[in-house]
């Protein structure tokens, strides 16, 4: 392959790039978000400066992604810390687990999503919307939520605001000599967000301590509630908010 074509490759490997070029459109992207109160000092310890924490409420969320362009069908779980960047309300993605290699590699390499391989499942079982997360053969998180108890709501403005917030990730890529090549805070804004349905209701959350999947390091003091959403949306490229290596 000639040098010009090498520069045009979307990703490794040359013979079958792991992910194509973006943006990436998702259809029927379903969320279960469980918000809970935790320890404010632990939040501060998990949030990189110059981000500033907001309150003592964070969330663990499950995502079912049955139709992600370029990526296929997969599931994810994430921990989200609400914060501000220069006064703007943002959501910092502190941990994320997925069960599919292209979004895992693309997520880390393009945007710096802190993805590791974990098996998340989001499904309806009887009367319960249930999320589970298994990492290295151990179940480390279980979330349950009542199923569509507020079934007739039509105003999704709160959900639109939530999904419209800037997502922030910490992108870290080493150089071949082991030194940092990229150390940035990245901002991402989903586009073309369509909320097909959203439901709030009672929820419970259990987090099990595990060293390589440490969701429980932000312990559950009190569950605030659950939010289920079904959406279509587009994940575009992002922008650099803060470059830790810039002089």
């Amino acid at each position, binding site marked *: 392959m000639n040098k010009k074509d090498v520069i045009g490759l979307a990703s490794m490997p*040359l013979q079958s790039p792991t992910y194509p070029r973006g943006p990436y459109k998702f259809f029927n992207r379903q969320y279960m978000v469980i918000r809970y109160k935790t320890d404010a000092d632990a939040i501060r310890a998990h949030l990189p400066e110059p981000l500033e924490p907001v309150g003592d409420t964070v969330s663990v969320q499950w995502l079912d992604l049955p139709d992600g362009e370029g990526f296929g069908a997969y599931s994810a779980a994430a921990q989200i810390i609400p914060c501000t960047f220069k006064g703007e309300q943002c959501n910092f993605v502190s941990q994320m687990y997925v069960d599919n290699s292209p979004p895992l590699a693309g997520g880390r*390499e393009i945007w710096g999503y802190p993805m590791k391989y974990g098996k998340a499942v989001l499904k309806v079982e009887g009367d319960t919307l249930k999320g589970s997360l298994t990492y290295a053969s151990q179940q480390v998180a279980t979330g349950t939520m009542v199923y569509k108890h507020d079934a007739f709501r039509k105003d999704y403005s709160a959900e639109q605001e939530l999904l419209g917030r800037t997502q922030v990730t910490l992108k870290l890529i080493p150089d*071949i000599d082991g030194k940092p090549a990229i150390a940035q805070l990245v901002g991402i804004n989903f586009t073309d967000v369509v909320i097909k349905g959203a439901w709030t209701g009672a929820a419970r959350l259990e987090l099990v301590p595990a060293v390589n999947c440490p969701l429980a390091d932000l312990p559950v003091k009190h569950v605030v509630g659950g939010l289920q959403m079904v959406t279509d949306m587009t994940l575009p*490229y992002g922008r650099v908010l803060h470059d830790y290596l810039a002089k």
Partner: protein
Amino acid sequence: MGPYRFINREFMIVTYETDKDLLRQVVPEPLEPNPDGHVLYEWIRMPDSSGFGDYTESGVVIPCFYKGEPVNFTAQMYLDDEPPISAGREIWGFPKKYALPKLEVCSDTLTGTLSYAGQMVAMGTMAYKHQEAPGGVEAQAKGMTRTSCNLKIIPDVDGTPKICQLVAYNLTDITVKGVWLSPARLHLIPHVNAPAADLPIKRIVGGKHFISDLTLPHGRVLFDYLKDA
């Protein structure tokens, strides 16, 4: 942080001859593919890897030349453990994807398989320890110091290329515990996302089986496509 130490790392390598024009297409310039059209299809068991744990790998390595120096270019790599996938891609540019390789002794046969997205895409078999390789463990350890190289590609957050380099590394502190040559066969099944069969098998050259301890250190940039191309 590296370097990374591997204990009892076991390799099965089936060398075969493929189409030379196809080989040229999948080797990035300025590397030159070997003139014999040889390809190494590998399985590697790694039961004890510092930082990474216990996992198995399988993939395609193409002997090449860089400015006249023989190097091994890693063209495809599949493994079943996420930290070495991420670290492999992000530090050294190993072209790693998640899949389920296996390397095991089944009765009289050393057997390697690779399953990608639920489908078998490669199956290699080798007779078990028929003869020690000429030169024994010392010659094998020396051979393993050969430079390996990868095409490291990392996009910027705006989608433009951020890192696009040919990078190189050399294994260190190599102890070979045994090395054997035996007859081998290889079967590759076409699959779009694990396209080992895109380099078709014209002739099997032979099989090599060896067990070693070694250290994978950081590396160096051989060629920077964004600066030098």
